């Protein structure tokens, strides 16, 4: 067991490093988008030079400077010229492989993910993300707490009423909500409750507003996030419970004299938990990446919206992209690890890492 956990954790860690490295290398291949403001750009260049991502060279020969001024010498990719009257300052990037090691070293030793170049110039990218994490996590955990009981309840109810009209209604609802993309659900909810009926706020309320609006402002995004998840969980629960309900051990439990509800709670539910718990842990990743769209629609200042704005066309903020994708990758990979491990915890019959 211990060895299995160790191996899985190690593998997940390797995958994490590979994904982050791939992301870094590819983003480095793309043209850079330095700060637009000239002063901020200069201080950014100095910082890049000090950190070692770029080398600096002073050109003092007059004829070369003249040629540069007349644009006869073209800039290479990610190279910067700075005209200083008698001399020309040239910043050139070092090889990407070397940049990679500097980058990795900065992260490991100083937790330095670089600075933002476009969104909030020269502030550390990780701070930008950190400020926005609480909102996103609050929403997602809230959605988790909303959707699990509802999904379970509906699933068990549908399984008990199998093939009656209640089951058919629930199955139809499941089919509908599992099919419709969450952004459509969210837009329609926003249109009905925000704009037409005017019951709920139309955008996510700002921090300084009073408490009641803060609470009502959470309703729409949580609903938008959980509809699809409820449908998925209901379908899975229904399938699992129906299967368990026909099993022999449940018949035995009933013959022993347990009531229907006792049998379901003590025997059916426990057995159906085996595939359900991992799927719930896994669904958190789905919620989190789904919330990127919801945040965009409802103007929520979360990690998803900062990722989207860092990816605005021709205004790319690579360090913010890197740190937010690292955030999402880490969470999704550790969710996968938890899913793997949870099988053994939920069901003692599954022995993990056992050799055949």
């Amino acid at each position: 067991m211990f060895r299995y956990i160790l191996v899985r954790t190690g593998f997940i860690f390797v995958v994490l490093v590979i994904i982050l490295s791939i992301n870094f290398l590819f983003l480095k291949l793309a043209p850079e988008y330095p700060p637009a403001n000239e002063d901020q750009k200069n201080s950014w260049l100095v910082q890049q030079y000090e950190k070692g991502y770029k080398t600096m060279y002073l050109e003092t020969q007059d004829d070369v400077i003249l040629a540069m001024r007349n644009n006869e010498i073209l800039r290479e990719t990610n190279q910067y010229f700075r005209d200083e009257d008698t001399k020309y300052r040239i910043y050139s990037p070092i090889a990407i492989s070397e940049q990679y090691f500097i980058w990795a070293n900065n992260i490991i030793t100083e937790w330095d993910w670089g600075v933002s170049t476009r969104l909030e110039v020269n502030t550390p990218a990780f701070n930008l993300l950190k400020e926005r994490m609480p909102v996103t996590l609050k929403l997602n955990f809230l959605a988790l707490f909303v959707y699990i009981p509802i999904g379970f309840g509906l699933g068990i109810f549908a399984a008990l009423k199998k093939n009656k009209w209640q089951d058919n209604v629930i199955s139809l609802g499941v089919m509908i909500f599992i099919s419709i993309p969450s952004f459509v659900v969210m837009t329609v909810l926003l249109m009905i409750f925000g704009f037409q009926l005017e019951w709920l706020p139309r955008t996510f309320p700002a921090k300084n507003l009073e408490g009641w609006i803060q609470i009502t402002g959470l309703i729409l995004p949580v609903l938008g996030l959980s509809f699809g998840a409820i449908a998925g969980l209901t379908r899975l629960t229904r399938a699992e419970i129906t299967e368990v309900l026909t099993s022999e051990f449940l018949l035995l439990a009933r013959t022993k004299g347990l009531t229907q509800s006792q049998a379901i709670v003590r025997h059916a539910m426990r057995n159906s938990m085996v595939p359900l718990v991992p799927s719930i842990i896994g669904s958190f990743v789905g919620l989190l990446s789904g919330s990127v769209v919801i945040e965009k629609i409802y103007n929520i200042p979360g990690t998803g919206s900062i990722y989207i704005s860092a990816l605005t066309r021709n205004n790319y903020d690579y360090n913010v992209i890197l740190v937010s994708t690292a955030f999402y990758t880490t969470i999704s990979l550790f969710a996968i690890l938890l899913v793997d491990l949870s099988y053994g915890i939920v069901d003692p019959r599954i022995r993990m890492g056992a050799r055949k």
Partner: protein
Amino acid sequence: MADNKNIEFDKVSKEDFEFVQMGEKIYDKKFETKPIGYFHDAMIRFAKNRTNVIATIILGIIIMMSIFVPIFSNKNAEVQESRLAYLPPRVPFLADYGIMDGYKYLDNQVVDLTTIDPVTGLGLPEDYPAQYIDMDTLENYYTSCKDKDDDRCVGGDNILKVDNQKSHIVLGSSYSDDTSEYMFLQLNQANNAYIQIDISQVIFTGDAKLNIYMATSLIGNSSLEDLTLIGTITEAGVYQFTPYEALGKTFVKSQIWLELVSNENEDGADSVYITNIEVYDDTSTNPIYSVDGYYLANNYVMTLLDDTAGGTWSRYNGQVLAAKFSYDAYGYAFGSYSISALPRSQYDKIIAEYSDSCTVTWVDPTNPYHYTLSEGCPVEEVLGRVGVVTVNGVEYFSYKVTANYGLMNGYESIPYFLFGTSGSGMDLFKLIWIGTRTSLLLGLLVSAINISIGVVFGSISGYYGGNVDLIMQRFAEIVGRIPWLVTLSIFIALYGPGQVALIGVLVISGWIGVAGVTRTQFYRYKGREYVLASRTLGAGDGRLIFRHILPNGIGTIITTSILSIPGVIFTESTLSYLGFGIGHGTTLHIFGLELTGVSVGVLLADGRNRLLYEPYLTVWPSVIVSILMISFNMFGNALRDAFNPALRGSE
């Protein structure tokens, strides 16, 4: 044996029995009934579930619509037509009953005060001609004004505010809204005239105060010495002042000046909210002078003395008379509009084309370029000539006209836009089907790519097994673990938003599923005897893979791929909604077809900012994409159930 119910079986005599067959042996004979094949069997199972059949029919209708509507609809979905933007849905037959009749409900439209009807008391909104407004729905109400610098914005307070670290600010009053000029007030003690100032709120941090002065000299040449203090205000309330004692006169012709004095050493902007300034006397119950709202705000602010003075004078919470009403958007859009310069050549062409219905009636006999044209003529009235240039004795000019939009643009009757029009004035109905077609084709294209990559990868991995399989599985696992956000950022950074990024993201995450299914199929079939036999006969790896094993597993592989198409459409619309996929202005080349970059996700993104007044821009694309996704999923599930051999023969 037609009615065997009536036969009493125990009384059948022996002679009535006969052998079915006697002569030949039948164990080598072919079945007389047709054998049911695998696909036929699947089809029978498929057709048994009625909901699935309905879903499949709906899916078929959607696919047909997405193919034929863009081809046969004559509505505009390519050219921007700004006058037709945001028209509401208008449906034949239903329109006669008042449902989706092209009327549009609007509120918060500023009322033109000159149009107020003395009988009903209702005013008409600006910019909307009365003939298109449904008068039964017209209502007037006051709302807070957006543009405070507007004389229709009435009531409310004006704030006189001293800046931080400044000592005072002076407001010179007496702007008249009747004469629209600065005037001197005339107060006569014989009529008991008095000044009334309504202060609704004061925000004073220290010992600030508001001084009321009478100014008898001209504006601009005053200093505080020319002023006479007649009162001081430190709290909110309605104050009345008489200037006679302070000035020692019984008749005063003067201006009212207000000075807000603040302690300049204190940090805090003192301000006072002034509702109105009025003058009353015995001659009338109404004030003889009254200024509030916009006109009060028009009074000028002076900074007398020195640079210790400074501050602002601004409007606070005025109201404007607004109207809500429903109006005939189609009638308005296709009705008359003015063209500031219609080239002469174009005008002549129109007149020639409609020569029967264009008879001229002169409005002004002295002006040869001012006349109306009869009904049915695209040009309704010619108002004059513009841009007259004489070259070699020939005059070149344009006409300034009002014209009928529908006739000018070749609409014989007012068209029915079933789902309304988009912000570019294009038919939403056609756009939606174009978008659906794009989504479906993208789904097919991506599935084809996924199948090609997945089948090759899965075949190699499954066929060779062992270490090759192990390495390829680890590779697939790592690629599969990459979150779509990572692939998206890489593709966007390298290629920019567009079809490359879209297809890239969809393929990177999509092929793994197909590879997995293919691998399982190979594990299932590669040990079978027929494969062994073929290998013994000398077949190579390629032949075994592509001629023997793959054809056996291809059914399952294709079913899985069809099941993945709705997922592809799902992701595509989400990415396009976020602006990372295709979009307006891009073109898409699939299978030799050139498509505009409109997909349902793009249409929904357009409707996102118009949820209040144009909800149909969101409703229709949502409905269509939902029906598409639901029916596609049901169809996919039904297909899987039908082809799943575990269910075979169970029903």
